[in-house]
């Protein structure tokens, strides 16, 4: 059995309005594929907002512990940190939700590096 795999890096940011949440990344894994998170970075433009803003990983709309609430800086922008334990099989959907619990708008972003592999039967 051989495996075809490809690594992707996605950078996204969005202005998250005060007291709201927004999906920043949604991906449904193709059938027979395996999606694996390799590294993750997050950032915001308001340093005082840390701990009042969060990045939540959701698998099929369920919070994924312990990445249900990343409250601090894991890696700034392109300086991504290794994130272990998120490996998803075909048909399932991963969401990353940015939440802003501050009283002001905050620009929040992610840098996600993941591997998509297709084991050949």
């Amino acid at each position, binding site marked *: 059995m051989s495996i075809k795999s490809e690594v992707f890096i996605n950078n996204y940011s969005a202005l998250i309005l005060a007291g709201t949440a927004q999906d920043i990344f949604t991906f449904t894994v193709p059938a027979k594929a395996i999606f694996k998170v390799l590294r993750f970075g997050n950032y915001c433009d308001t340093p005082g907002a840390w701990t009042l803003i969060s990045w*939540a990983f959701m698998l099929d*709309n*369920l919070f994924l512990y312990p990445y249900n*609430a990343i409250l601090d800086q894991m890696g700034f922008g392109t300086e991504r940190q290794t994130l272990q334990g998120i490996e998803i099989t075909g048909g399932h959907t991963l969401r990353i939700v940015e939440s802003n*619990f501050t009283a002001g708008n905050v620009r929040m972003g992610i840098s996600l590096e993941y591997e998509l592999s297709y084991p050949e039967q």
Partner: protein
Amino acid sequence: MPFLVIGLGCLALFFLVKSLGASPVSLVKPSLPTGTKNAPYSDIILMSSRTWGVPSALIKAVIRQESNFNPNAINSQAAKTATKTDDSYGLMQVGLMTAQNFGLVKDYKNPSQYEISSLMTPQNNINAGARELSRLLGKYPFDTAVQMYNVGEAGFNKGYRAPDYLNKVKGFYDEYKI
């Protein structure tokens, strides 16, 4: 003579129980309230507690008061307000606006059935409820935060209070802290 035999039998039974180390008092001790020691969803509660910095005993106390550990609990205000926006759902009776602030519902005024089902799963519900408790405890004193969890910040500021809510939650909190 039969009374002497019965009396001796009772005495022997008493010493037998005592010798086994079982206190007669413990035999009649009332059972603990639902979930006091082995609360359901303990793993999720613990993880949410650690994530959001809210005591797990407080999360359990709120769940006990809000839904008595029934994940399917729905408090429908729709009959009073003709909208679903004031309804609350699940173990921690999370409202739709709170759910929207957490990314579980896109539009709190028009939630889909899928979004409501998702909100009612223990994992999402406890996470969202604990986050809301954490937010309130970060801004207000304990008593105020707990009452605001029940009637909302705006409701509390308008003077709304649920009778006994605070005392009940504090009572359960004391139980779970032990």
